[in-house]
């Protein structure tokens, strides 16, 4: 291993993420995330976080609304703090806090594409289920908080922006975008290139027709702006991160005899986080909680660095890391602590680590 080899291993892992099969899923995914951010009425979701909403409704909405509301992490924290202090209380607030970053649509799509369909699905189900479990536990541990807070729960809900677009059209629009994504990213084993391009082309024309007749110029501009904003913010960081992951692999290969850059770190850490046992899941979950991972990079860290793609890391710890990773990091721990206080924040962090461990372990038993 020379420095050049190390550089090459960085470039090789970069190449994997710039290849056609990843880009064909990421580019439409950015457009979908942009469309969701601009076109989905956030106000209509926010009203379910009020103090008078029935508990089970708040919990279920909180557990899935991350996909719609939380494309940008800076919107999550004020929203969390508002629900916590003035809205539905600590349970739904922590449910939302966890699920927000965890079921981000970009991350799910990339997980399914790069790491495999099964773990992608497991990630959605795991994140939704886990967010509800954590919310319920938090509210039963800190029941007193909600009682004390019931007096000042007047949340000023913004008025619903009236849109004269029928809901059917909005739904059709999103479905078309998702179809483009699914068909565009489908393996050529299922659909050969030529019909695939044809179908994507026809779908794109349908999308344009809807845009022309039902969306105003300003809205389309906003959609484009939002898509570009997300791409600009996430994609370069992902590429740099992937490159660094490759470099670390290269350096590790230098110190681990008998390995190459694609599996060196995986082999080195396999005794601790590789197996489908409870201890591996626990360590993986702790790593996920502490390590700050920019959006989407957790996929590369699990797949390439720790060797899930190479078959060195099993499904259990991989899922545990994917679950605890995006929702916890040092910067957001600080904000959580400031909003909730040290005690509640510690309990929340502990719950995330423990529940992620168990869900990972169960997944390892079933499918990993």
């Amino acid at each position, binding site marked *: 291993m020379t420095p050049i080899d190390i550089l090459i291993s960085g470039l090789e892992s970069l190449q994997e993420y710039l290849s056609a099969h990843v880009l064909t899923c990421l580019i439409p995914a950015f457009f979908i995330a942009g469309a969701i*951010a*601009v076109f989905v009425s*956030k*106000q209509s979701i*926010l009203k379910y*976080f009020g103090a008078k909403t029935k508990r089970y409704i708040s919990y279920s909405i909180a557990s899935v609304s991350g996909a719609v*509301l939380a494309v*940008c*992490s*800076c*919107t999550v*924290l*004020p*929203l969390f*703090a*508002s*629900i916590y*202090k*003035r809205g539905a209380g600590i349970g739904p607030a922590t449910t939302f806090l966890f699920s927000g970053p965890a079921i981000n649509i970009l991350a799910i799509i990339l997980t399914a594409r790069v790491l495999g369909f099964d773990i992608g699905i497991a990630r959605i189900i795991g994140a939704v289920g886990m967010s509800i479990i954590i919310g319920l536990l938090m509210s039963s541990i800190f029941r007193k908080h909600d009682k004390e807070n019931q007096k000042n729960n*007047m*949340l*000023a*809900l*913004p008025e619903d922006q009236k849109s004269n677009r029928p809901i059917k059209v909005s739904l059709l629009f999103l479905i078309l975008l998702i179809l483009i994504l699914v068909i565009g990213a489908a393996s050529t084993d299922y659909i050969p290139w030529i019909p695939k391009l044809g179908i994507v082309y026809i779908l794109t024309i349908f999308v344009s027709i809807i845009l022309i007749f039902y969306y105003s110029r*300003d809205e389309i*501009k*906003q959609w484009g702006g939002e898509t570009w*904003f997300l791409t600009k*913010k996430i994609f370069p960081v992902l590429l740099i991160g992937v490159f660094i992951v490759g470099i670390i692999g290269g350096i590790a290969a230098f110190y681990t005899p008998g390995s190459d850059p694609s599996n060196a770190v995986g082999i080195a850490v396999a005794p601790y986080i590789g197996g489908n046992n409870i201890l591996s899941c626990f360590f993986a979950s702790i790593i996920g909680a502490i390590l700050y991972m920019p959006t989407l990079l957790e996929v590369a860290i699990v797949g390439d660095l720790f060797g899930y793609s190479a078959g060195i890391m099993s499904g259990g710890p991989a899922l545990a890391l994917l679950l605890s990773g995006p929702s916890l990091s040092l910067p957001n721990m600080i*904000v959580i602590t*400031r*909003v909730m206080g040290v005690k509640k924040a510690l309990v929340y962090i502990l719950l995330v680590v423990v529940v992620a461990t168990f869900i990972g372990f169960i997944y390892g038993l079933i499918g990993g």
Partner: protein
Amino acid sequence: MKIEVLGPGCAKCKATEKIVKKAVEELGIQAEVVKIEDLQEIIDRGVMMTPAVIVDGEVKIVGHAPTIDEIKKILK
């Protein structure tokens, strides 16, 4: 006129502040633009999603970075 831009300092909130200032300048109106970054204060205004724009105490924009035309329409 008092215009408040609320946001904890993320990219979009900074963009919003810039757009608001530009709109004020282009319209040539007398307005004071204030940035509010403290999370507690943002919540006290009843704002759940940032960036938000408040004009003379009235919440006008919540949860997205406005375009310059949007701001101009509000300020007029």
